[in-house]
């Protein structure tokens, strides 16, 4: 396998007394699409922000193209930003309402490619608009004149205009209607294949993750509980939380028998807590789950899980 584009090691983020992320370690390889799934409050967005150094990390390493993003000086970080782009959930809120969409897409070019002439810049903007499925003639319009799906296309155009090596999509299709969602996912798939781009795709929607990704990471209360190839994760999930999550997704036609879902609700993340964060809701919890935090271990080739019973749960549990 090739060298990872992004290596995250032991990343930890604290907000006051609360730990939002801890012991997060993973590799992201070139041209790979990694989905990051989990429920609200699990730390998905915090991880994205910590990688981009939009929130400070308490400890850990984020190595990107040989640089530790958490420790390089601000000037060097700024230069790296062109290689690391992000698309946010709310397409309208992430565009400046007083800036025409053409100006919004041109702004990264102004900053990172200042030698471009105005004509070259507008040519690049026009090409990018066409590439995301909008007419180049719309460059003079303002965000409020576009629908949610169109605004998301504009957000993607702005992120892609510098040809970043890593694109992070934070719930980029979650606010869109299902008929529009597919259009945006196809656009991302095309861009990813054409440009060989690496993508970290954050979503709470498991079915979307399944369609889009090569590998999937599952997060629960600030920890990665499972990492596996997309096929393995959906066919043979190991962690009880992954299983509960998959069982809870409503399906058409509805599933006849109710699978064992997670009991209760998630707790508030607590630094001082020992043991597995999922144990109170877990149908398989043992005494050891209360005292010892299960480490993320490779339980099958390429499949990692943080569960004391992972070797059992590979087979169906009674």
């Amino acid at each position, binding site marked *: 396998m090739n060298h990872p584009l992004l290596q995250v090691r032991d990343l930890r983020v604290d907000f006051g007394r609360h730990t939002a992320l801890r012991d997060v370690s993973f590799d992201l390889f070139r041209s790979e699409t990694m989905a990051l799934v989990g429920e609200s409050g699990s730390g998905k967005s915090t991880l994205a922000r910590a990688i981009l150094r939009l929130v400070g990390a308490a400890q850990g390493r984020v190595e990107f193209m040989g640089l530790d993003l958490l420790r390089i000086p601000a000037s060097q970080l700024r230069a790296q930003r062109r290689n690391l782009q992000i698309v946010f959930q709310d397409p309208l809120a992430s565009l400046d309402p007083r800036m025409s969409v053409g100006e919004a897409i041109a702004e990264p070019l102004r900053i990172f490619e200042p030698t471009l002439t105005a004509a070259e810049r507008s040519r690049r903007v026009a090409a990018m608009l066409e590439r995301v499925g909008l007419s180049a003639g719309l460059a003079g319009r303002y965000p409020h004149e576009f629908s949610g799906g169109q605004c998301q296309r504009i957000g993607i155009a702005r992120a892609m205009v510098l040809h970043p090596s890593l694109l992070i999509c934070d719930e980029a299709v979650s606010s869109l209607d299902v*008929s529009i969602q597919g259009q945006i996912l196809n656009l991302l*798939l095309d861009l990813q294949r054409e440009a060989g781009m690496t993508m970290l795709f954050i979503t*709470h929607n498991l079915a979307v993750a399944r369609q889009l990704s090569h590998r999937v990471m599952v997060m629960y209360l600030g920890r990665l509980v499972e990492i596996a190839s997309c096929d393995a994760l959906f066919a043979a999930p190991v962690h009880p939380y992954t299983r509960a999550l998959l069982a809870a997704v*409503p399906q058409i036609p*509805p599933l006849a028998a109710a699978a064992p879902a997670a009991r209760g*609700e998630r707790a508030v993340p607590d630094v001082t807590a020992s043991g597995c964060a999922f144990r109170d*809701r877990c149908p398989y919890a043992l005494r050891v789950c209360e005292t010892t935090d299960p480490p993320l271990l490779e339980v099958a080739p390429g499949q990692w899980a943080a569960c004391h019973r992972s070797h059992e749960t590979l087979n169906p549990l009674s």
Partner: protein
Amino acid sequence: MVATLRIDELSVSFAHRTGTAAAVDGVSLCIAPAECVGVVGESGSGKTQLFLAVMGLAGNAKVSGSIRFQGEELLGAAAPAINRVRGSKLTMMFQDPMTSLTPHLSIGTQLAEVVVCHLGRSWGEARIAAGRMLERVRIPEPQRRLNQYPHELSGGMRQRVMLAMSLLCEPALVIADEPTSALDVTIQAQIIGLLRAVRGEAGTALALISHDLAVVAGLADRILVMYAGRIVEHGAAAELFRQPRHPYTAGLLECVPSLSGPRLARLPTLAGQPPRPGEALQGCSFAPRCPRAADRCRSERPVLTGASTRQVACHFPLA
């Protein structure tokens, strides 16, 4: 048998600078006692406005047509007549459980108030009823919750409180507008299970509004599909999912990404986007996005036709 809710030719329109925009355009529907009817559609399809009009909460919109609840006309009725049923026999729970509870009143007070106002009980009795109802919606430690405030509860628990509130006066119909859309998927599964149980226990009719076809699939007996303010298809849930007849329903079902079946190189999509409200369209409002559209679709608006249990508004429905 008198229908719990019968709506005839209901239209809801808003005035704007250049004219009026119809959010709901001539919708008729009927909900029988103890029935669960799902109303699906994408944002802007008019599904929420339709039921806000039923609740008399359409604000400054112009509402016309007829809304009969247990045989009694609500549209144009005097305020005391509406207030007799609204909040007691006819209730609504909303998507966002945080903004639909009053932040400065305890859960117990908010629940008891409903019983005091609608059933004329004393506050003491009402509080006991409130505690019992919290137990019925399976909130852990119900007595403690009575003294807590909305911000102390999780989203899932707040939605259980909303459901408890809408059930306090043994309603004939609960309207649930995206009741699980703001919740995590494991909590969503719990609330869907709860709604299913409540229906079974009390014989309450349920109107379930959602953009999520899969959520509706797990609960509804019948489904109405809305597009651009109109009902485009209607049928028994299982049949509608197995054999959609309107190209929009079929397209929508195809677009829902699945957890089973093959992974696809490209996701199915519906081209284009829904018309903006007020956008004048001759003919079928889905025609610009429809793979089956012909000249007739662009000139003549299709009406809902078929047997009363299976209707479709399309000139060229799927077989």
